């Protein structure tokens, strides 16, 4: 009796595996794809080498003044000499450690929230949200407990951008959730109030709001009373973004099946407990992409404070380009700005994806 032995498997044809196979499947699968690939490659060849040449190979990296730049490529010396100003604005050099300290505290303080095994996470988180803003205000602004006052007119650069964005996010999220709940409330007074608020702030462009806060508001305030310019801007950003968050959250609330509300009621939970324990956790999870989307937009919108003469990151760069010693450096400045903004926004977007995966409890189809 002969034992039947299978012939060994033949390897797949070389044309369908490895790099070659991938190329064939993805880039040259039909004549139209081949054409598109070739056109794409041609465009890359047109764009990438000159950009690399400008940004890296022909760029000037070291020096002190404009004269040290050959002007054939980018002059990164400009960014280098102004780096401190781009990060901290006119915050006094010898006090910049306070900004650093506030940033490190934010990172270290928030770190335990990312640990899986951390007990009492909710309590810690709430405590952090209450304590940190006071601490940050004390460090950044000072004026009590032995720290010298640094008026907000000296704040600037990336620090100011982050401060406005952080305050905007921290303020707009809770306010937005409340507004969303209010808009779905059964009580007419609250509903009308919330709808009016949301529709008003959504109906006007942020740039107009900022402009009004800076140009019209001071005329209506009584003589001698002046609200800090930064405070005005931050309030406007919070109100404006809260209206958007409210609509995003409302989308989540509407996506929760009626059964969930009824089940919560059947368990004997009142409005607040059913909202906090049953509805909101599900609704917020659903709208993470929308919320993060709003936050990314907010982060970039902070650059609109340029219209009211606050020197955020972008405006600090713009101001530096007006220095006669560094005229003509705007391209370098704006490329640098784009890079930094992109890093922040990309970071937020990756974090939101991670959050979505972590909180995913299997409702996805």
């Amino acid at each position, binding site marked *: 009796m002969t034992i039947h032995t299978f012939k060994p498997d033949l390897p797949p044809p070389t044309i369908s595996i490895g790099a070659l196979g991938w190329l064939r499947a993805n880039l040259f699968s039909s004549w139209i794809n081949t054409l598109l690939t070739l056109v794409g490659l041609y465009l890359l060849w047109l764009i990438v080498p000159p950009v690399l040449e400008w940004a890296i190979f022909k760029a000037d990296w070291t020096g002190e003044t404009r004269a040290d730049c050959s*002007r054939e490529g980018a002059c990164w010396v400009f960014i280098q*000499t*102004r780096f401190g*100003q781009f990060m901290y604005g*006119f915050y006094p*050099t010898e006090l910049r450690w306070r900004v650093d300290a506030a940033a490190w505290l934010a990172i270290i303080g928030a770190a335990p929230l990312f640990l899986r095994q951390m007990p009492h996470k909710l309590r810690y988180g709430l405590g952090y949200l209450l304590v940190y803003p006071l601490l940050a205000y004390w460090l950044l602004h000072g004026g009590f407990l032995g720290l010298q006052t640094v008026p907000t*007119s000296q704040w600037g650069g990336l620090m100011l951008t982050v401060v406005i964005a952080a305050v905007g996010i921290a303020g707009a999220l809770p306010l937005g959730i409340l507004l969303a709940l209010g808009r779905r409330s059964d009580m007419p007074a609250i509903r009308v109030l919330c709808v009016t608020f949301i529709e008003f702030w959504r109906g006007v462009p942020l740039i107009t709001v900022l*402009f009004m806060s*800076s*140009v*019209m508001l*001071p*005329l*209506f*305030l009584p*003589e*001698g009373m*002046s609200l800090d310019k930064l405070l005005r801007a931050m309030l406007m950003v919070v109100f404006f973004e809260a209206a958007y968050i409210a609509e995003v959250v409302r989308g989540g609330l509407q996506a929760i099946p009626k059964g969930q509300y009824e089940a919560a009621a059947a368990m004997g939970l009142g409005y607040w407990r059913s909202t906090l324990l049953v509805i909101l956790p599900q609704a917020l999870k659903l709208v993470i992409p929308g919320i993060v989307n709003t936050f990314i937009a907010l982060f970039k919108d902070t650059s609109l404070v*340029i*219209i*009211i*003469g606050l*020197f955020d990151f972008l*405006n600090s760069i*713009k*101001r*530096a*380009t*007006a*220095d*006669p*010693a560094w*005229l*003509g450096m*705007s*391209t370098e400045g704006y490329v640098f700005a784009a890079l930094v903004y992109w890093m922040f926004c990309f970071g937020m977007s990756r974090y939101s994806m991670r959050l979505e995966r972590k909180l995913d409890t299997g409702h996805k189809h």
Partner: protein
Amino acid sequence: MIRVKSTLAALGAASLLGISGLAQAGATLDAVQKKGFVQCGISDGLPGFSYADAKGQYLGIDVDVCRAVAAAVFGDASKVKYSPLTAKERFTALQSGEVDMLSRNTTWTSSRDAAMGLNFTGVTYYDGQGFLVNKELGVKSAKELDGATVCIQAGTTTELNLSDYFRANNLKYTPITYDTSDESAKSLESGRCDVLTSDQSQLYAQRIKLAKPDDYVVLPEVISKEPLGPAVRQGDEEWFDIVRWTLFAMLNAEELGITSANVEEKAKSTKNPDVARLLGVEGEYGKDLKLPKDWAVQIVKQVGNYGEIFDRNVGAGSELKIERGLNALWNNGGVQYAPPVR
């Protein structure tokens, strides 16, 4: 729409009236002395006029005017706090009392002077709209610009002046408007337009931005009058006089040959009665202005005379290298003229 506009206008007028009613003679000086510094509105970045260097120090002609006022009032030019203002914010900031004076390359016009609740104290820089062209074009005069593509840096009146000038001279042109000076400079460089128009003081800054500045030339024609000067709130004559005479003191100092280097020596040893009066050696002219006796000495010592300020910020001693032109003293071919201290 018309109703909305008139309501807004009325609202604006009412608020202006309210504010100017509040500004009483002497109030500003008292307030400034009480808080210990001059709050000065400057631009958010204009080469040569107000900009910040790498150390975060504000510099420029407009900034020096602020410093001179502080030197006159306090004897210390560093007692200034700056508020960088955008073009749209500037008048509100002054009207609402957010700043004590505005030194922000603002053109003195009748409507601003009369209807905005503010007063211009003088002219720190006689500017005017001009043209920057590539030498290759072979144009010697703006009158040869028929059919040109003109890059306009959007300004409050730039476009109007341009259209007036070309219409008056029966020339055709295609305008391209840009919001920032960087864009328009790049556009001129890449040949998208033949000529760039903006205030002359800015054209020199624009020229530096180009890769080959020497290939470009500023045409001689000046098509508009743009006298730039500091402004204060209406209704406080005392403060108005202080800001006005600070500028006059700098002009007189230049005329009398007093510089930051020799001012102290001149104050001690002068025989010239004009110098003696200006520097407070003779008479009580500072007191009339409610300023210390040595107010002009402090201005010149700490900030400089007008010529020095011009030179180091926009003139030969700066990157911009703008010629004095109209801004030379009256006895030197220009129109800068100050009444005497007497």
